[in-house]
């Protein structure tokens, strides 16, 4: 099972990934990524959600955006994917202003899975995944061999090949989410933006989906951006965490630097203790709540940027 192999920190793969992560975050400079936002102001009608925000998505890494409800995470993601046009400022993709690029061209470089996509009634898994090919298709280029291969690869990567001829309506939540990710993969983009892919899933399926994201990042070098609610999972899977509150980035960097008790209080207004995750050695947030008092613990020992041996 995939789930298990990732969990054990003493196994080579996990070891490698953690070490890898430590190195990359140290020389992670801002303003270098293929996808970045420069001083964007994002608003729906007159309602400003985000004002003057700059952000660079590190290439080939997993970036997780966290923050309380309605802090502008999804809005930011929509702007990064060209779904929302900034009132001022720009989003840059490969050195070009994303709004100058044709929609179809953007869709060939960057895939977005929105929070609540709608599966047409009665559609088969394979047909839904095939819709991911539309940016590559033309009127008389409806189903080329490369389309077929891409859908094949997407189904394989998400282990949904067995479900190919099933109806999407019949699937469990976790399976359905895998299918949606497969659709986004079929787009064959190096950049993947997933808006809350784990919401409504039970814990096992959450891990399942996140393992899949990590696998896509590791094995296929895709840049992944996730919006997540669970801080502990965010810490575990992210190379780079962006913590937002009220449309402002409060902290950004490797999980160990960003997820501290002060930052969590700052961002979420939640008192907590941050301890070491015994499995992945990433920060683990333990909320205190009103019925308990903060325990007297030694400050968490964690060497940022060093591989955990």
């Amino acid at each position, binding site marked *: *099972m995939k789930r298990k*192999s*990732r969990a054990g920190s003493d*196994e*080579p793969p996990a070891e*490698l990934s953690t070490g890898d992560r430590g190195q990359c975050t140290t020389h992670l400079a801002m303003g270098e990524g293929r996808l970045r936002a420069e001083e964007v102001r994002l608003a*729906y*009608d007159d309602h400003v959600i985000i004002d003057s925000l700059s952000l660079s998505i590190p290439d080939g890494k997993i970036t997780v955006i966290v923050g309380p409800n309605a802090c502008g995470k999804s809005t930011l993601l*929509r702007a990064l*994917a*060209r*779904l929302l046009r900034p009132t001022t400022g720009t989003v840059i993709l490969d050195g070009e202003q994303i709004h100058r690029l*044709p*929609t179809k*061209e*953007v*869709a*060939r470089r960057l*895939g*977005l899975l*929105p929070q609540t*996509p*709608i599966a*047409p*009634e*009665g*559609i*088969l898994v*394979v*047909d839904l995944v*095939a*819709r*991911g090919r*539309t*940016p590559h298709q033309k*009127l*008389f*280029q*409806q*189903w*080329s*061999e*490369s*389309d*077929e*291969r*891409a*859908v*094949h*690869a997407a*189904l394989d990567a998400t282990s949904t090949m067995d479900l*190919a*001829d099933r109806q999407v309506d019949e699937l469990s939540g976790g399976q359905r989410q895998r299918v949606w990710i497969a659709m*986004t993969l079929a*787009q064959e983009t190096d950049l993947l933006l997933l808006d809350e892919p784990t919401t409504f899933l039970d814990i096992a399926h959450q891990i399942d989906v996140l393992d899949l994201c990590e*696998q896509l990042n*590791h*094995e*296929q*070098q895709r840049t992944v951006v996730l919006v997540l609610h669970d801080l502990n999972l965010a810490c575990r899977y992210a190379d780079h965490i962006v913590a937002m509150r009220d449309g402002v980035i409060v902290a950004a960097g490797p999980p160990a630097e960003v997820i501290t008790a002060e930052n969590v209080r700052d961002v979420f207004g939640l008192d907590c203790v941050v301890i070491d995750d015994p499995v992945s050695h990433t920060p683990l947030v333990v909320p205190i709540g009103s019925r308990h008092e903060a325990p007297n613990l030694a400050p968490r020992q964690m060497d940022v940027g060093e591989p955990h041996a």
Partner: protein
Amino acid sequence: MTLLTDAPPIDRAVVTDTPPPARLPIRGRVFRTRFFSVRVDPRALAVCGILTALITVFGCWAISVGDFPIPISEVIKTLLGSPTEDSEFIIGTLRLPRVLVAIGVGAAFGMSGAIFQALVRNPLGSPDLIGFNSGAALGAVVMIVYVGGSSTQVAMGAIGGGFVAAILVFLLAWKRGVKAYRLVLVGIGCGFAIEAAIDFLITRAKITDVQRAAVWMTGSLNGRSWDQVRLVAFGLLVLGPLAVLMQRWLDRLDLGDDAAAALGLNVSRAKLGLVIVGVALAALGVAAAGPIVFVAFVAGPIARRLVHSPSACIVPAAFVGALVVVVADLAARRVIAPTELPVGIMTAIIGAPYLLWLLMRQARTGAL
């Protein structure tokens, strides 16, 4: 899972050079050459073929019956180009145009309904329920009452009225985008207001105009001539191909606006295009035959069920619409012959129970 250290990074260029191990069970047949590939749905083709056959059968039947019955064999002979003297006038001038208009109008309503129902994501979003047909009717009645109304003028009035009604409904339903239930409710409300305006106009008009307008208002194919055939044929020739091409947009919009945009669709432009073509098709039908109710409403869902497709079926809906109107007109002429009922009454008899059933179901499931 294989160890990550053992699994070298997959080079996607290599992946795309190897042939896929097995054929994917995607819907439809693929025809592929070096330069192009087309995906067709055999089931949709079969449905359209069967519907064409049925339309032909009912069309010939409709031509053969009447005050002056003509045997089917003679109908076929006449249609194939060797008429007798009687049949040439009765078929060529009276009955054939009527059947052709029925087919064309049905196709236009069917496509329009399929487009709007898919856009609104609700079968209740069909143009005859949300006031667009009423708007087109108002435009036509204004032309009849105030201008005099040649068939071209009536047609222009209908198309203008349809668009004004559509703009009105969309503006009133707009609240950071258009939600299905708002559109349906606002549309039904606007429909009533427009009907009231029509009634008002009719009370003020000359009695001869009133008669013309009243027959036309229930949706009638009585006395259709080659003028209307030309109008409908020309309209369908322009709008039909556009509607068929726009199927690709609808397929993406089905996934939700954000997902459609993420797949490279310019959502607002696509929606605007679909609305324009949909309204134009509905107005075309109204211009030629009056606001025949429930054709647009039933054609889409029937087509979808027949083709068994998860997406909107614009083309099959056109065939279903055509068959519905041809059959309804035949029934309208024959049920209490020799009195001919307007075709709109027959389609209402078919459509109203379906509407009631749908309302009950949606109220129960909370879809509306």
